[in-house]
């Protein structure tokens, strides 16, 4: 019998369908909300400023400006109420948490756009370094 580990058990609870987005992206979050006994999908759009990893405990924070006031919502990645996350614009960022956006107003809030997605960008970087490593070993 294999040893039961909390880290393995947590992985089983992660949602099957992954959303392809990263910190800095401007996204539409489709979230199921309940109004009385009716359910409908509400969309919250804004910039992803943080993504906190941890298997089933993963969560991300979306920030937007609503009538001059900064609003942030934290979404649990594996909540069944989270229906979809659609990327409207890819952002090019140099850090994992964009908390500095909280101190900014107006134009400065904008994150630079990136032409490629996070996966494509990572793929473009990866083969190069791997090849270099191989050459070093030979």
């Amino acid at each position, binding site marked *: 019998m294999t040893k*039961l580990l909390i880290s393995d058990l*947590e992985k089983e609870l992660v949602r099957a369908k992954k959303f392809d987005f990263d910190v800095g992206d401007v996204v539409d979050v489709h979230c199921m909300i309940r109004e009385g006994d009716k359910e409908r999908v509400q969309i919250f759009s804004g910039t992803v400023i943080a993504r906190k990893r941890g298997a089933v405990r993963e969560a991300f924070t979306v920030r937007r400006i609503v009538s001059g006031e900064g609003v942030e919502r934290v979404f*649990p990645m594996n909540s069944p*109420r989270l229906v979809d996350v659609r990327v409207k614009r890819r952002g090019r960022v140099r850090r994992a948490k964009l908390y500095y956006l909280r101190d900014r107003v107006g134009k400065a809030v904008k994150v630079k756009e990136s032409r490629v997605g996070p996966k494509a960008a990572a793929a473009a970087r990866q083969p190069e370094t791997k090849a270099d490593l191989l050459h070093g070993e030979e």
Partner: protein
Amino acid sequence: MSQNRLPALLGRKLGMTQVFAENGDMVPVTMLEIGPCTVLQVKTVERDGYAAWKVGFGTTRKKPTKAMAGVFAQAGGAAARIVGEVPPIEGREVKAGDQLTVAVFEGVARINVAGTSKGRGFSGTIRRHNFSSGPRAHGSKNVREIGSAGSVFNARVLPGKPMPGQWGNCRATVQNLGVVKIDPARNLLVVRGAVPGPPGGYVVVQESTYKR
């Protein structure tokens, strides 16, 4: 020992995580590895004065004492990491060597979990009993003191007076935790809320007498 006569079993705390209920609510849960527990000895009223099952959980490389080695030998040999007594489950016959799994809690809605709480050493009253600290300025010297120990009338300190001392590393029971999931195939018991002790700590789980 058990607090009531309802089914109980030994196990290990795996750790905490969260799961989502069907309606989407997030539920904080503790995962427990419960059983399989080997029945080591069946105590009867006729021979021992009370009825109980002596059970063992886990494995150990430690050499048991000769007395315990005899008990383990009757149940098949392997030494258990922890040994405890649980009340017999009504309508179920067991003999030494039988295995009890988490399936005994099938259909149970609420349980109690007893474990050894995390040790915090010798702690003062501010941390241990939630006292307030005294003023730090104006020549005050009772910054973290306990303050008054009671009235002069009694001419003594009343028993139970909260004072500094060893905190934690003692048996603690959390009652009436909701059962979220039972997985007998993997000896897994998922309960709502927190359980005493660190991940990997040994626990005793028992059906709760609360009915809700």
